[in-house]
């Protein structure tokens, strides 16, 4: 993963983070909200190789750790998404190229978002955080999964195109 792609991906994720915190968070969706940021990050991770997924997961997690509304310690999201990046990239190798199989792409990203949220909650549990009742947490995570599946077909085609723009001429070959 080139340093240009790391920088451009981080910039893109920062923009999505601002959009998430300022606009998406204000929309009162039923069941639970939709995390555009997690969706974009897992979407980008699923297009990368193992090293790229790890770096993106860590960087993306650090950006999410900056959220002023969160109570968790800095590094919890970075830890979570590094693990998610590793596991998703390892499993992705067995699935192959997503760009020709939209349904697999949608399901993989939705499963990745859901898995990341569960890992985050599990780490929070180990750190002694109080995130509320199990029913509330399950409804938030499953609600998020529902909205991710619903919005993915509309938003996912954008990600491979954006990624292609950040590829160096050597990486395109």
């Amino acid at each position: 993963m080139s340093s240009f792609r790391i920088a451009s991906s981080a910039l893109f994720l920062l923009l999505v983070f601002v959009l998430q915190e300022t606009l998406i968070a204000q929309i009162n969706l039923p069941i639970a909200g939709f995390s555009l940021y997690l969706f974009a990050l897992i979407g980008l991770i699923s297009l990368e190789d193992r090293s790229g997924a790890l770096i993106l997961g860590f960087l993306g997690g650090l950006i999410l750790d900056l959220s002023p509304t969160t109570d968790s310690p800095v590094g919890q999201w970075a830890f979570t998404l590094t693990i998610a990046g590793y596991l998703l990239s390892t499993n992705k190798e067995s699935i192959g190229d997503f760009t020709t199989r939209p349904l697999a792409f949608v399901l993989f990203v939705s499963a990745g978002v859901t898995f990341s949220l569960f890992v985050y909650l599990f780490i929070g549990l180990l750190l002694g955080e109080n995130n509320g009742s199990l029913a509330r947490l399950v409804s938030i995570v499953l609600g998020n999964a529902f909205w991710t599946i619903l919005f993915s077909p509309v938003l996912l085609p954008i990600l491979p195109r954006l990624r292609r723009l950040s590829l160096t001429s050597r990486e395109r070959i």
Partner: protein
Amino acid sequence: MAPAGNNRSRLLLVVLLVTALFFITLDLRGVSLAKGSRSVTQSVLAPVQRAVSSAFSPVGNFFSNIKNFGKTKARVTELEAANAKLQAQVIFNKEIQGELTQLRGALDLAGRAGYTVVAARVIGKGSTSTFSETFTIDAGSRDGIHPDMTVIAASGLVGVVKSVTSTSAIVLLMSDPSFRIGVRIARTQSAGVLLGEGDASYILQLLDPAGTIKVGDELVSLGSDGNKPFVPGIPIGRVSSVDNSSASLTQQATVIGLTNLQTVGVVSVITKMAKQNPKDSLVPTPIPTVTVTAQPVPFTPPVLLPSTSPTPSSSPTPSSQATK
């Protein structure tokens, strides 16, 4: 033997995980890593949130109202545009009216208790990926707001100020699972602890083993030492059901909050406590209901006089008035 790429990625995984754990450890050991970085983020995000908050709703309504824009005749187009503009203005006015009503209610509540308050608009809400229940408001340290100040709305408590920048503040809502507040039952003066549950309902744990809770009991804040983070006497909620199981040492109840946190648009932050404790003076008094019971009047057939001709009358008969 594993390929070199796999070994490299595993090494990278270990390095990144150790770095993340290092950050977590630093944060948990009190190094103000989170406070500084999140304060900077909040300072950057607050102006954008304010702009989005003020622009998003009217624009959204405007576009939904001018869906028929684009007719062929110039006159019709012109009129529709004018109409849409007026409708958007009306919606905008309604929104302002709604905010004014909420503000009036919040100021009225604060005024009755004699609190000094700073009014603020809600410009952002916590995203679901953070799992915490928060608001961002458009007033900060420049307006005299500091962490651990009580935040109220027209009907009662909203939460407590968690962090502050010069122009904005994050409010931890009373619905957050980590939220705890000492409360007093207005009827019996028994003290208890109210716990946030992540939604509109709360758990009340009574501290007094001999105390009793009844459905409909009103709860007010007990107040904290030095009035921080909570001032006393703020209405909080109403008991909706009582758990009478003998398993717990103290009595528990489910409480419904008086403030609908989903619809709050304007809040007041209490910056200065009243000279006197308001005690139970802010507890909402139920609106008296008047029951009118209509007495059935026995039907009496009209007496027809043979000498007079029947004339149409518009006034109803007494019997028909009573039965209506």
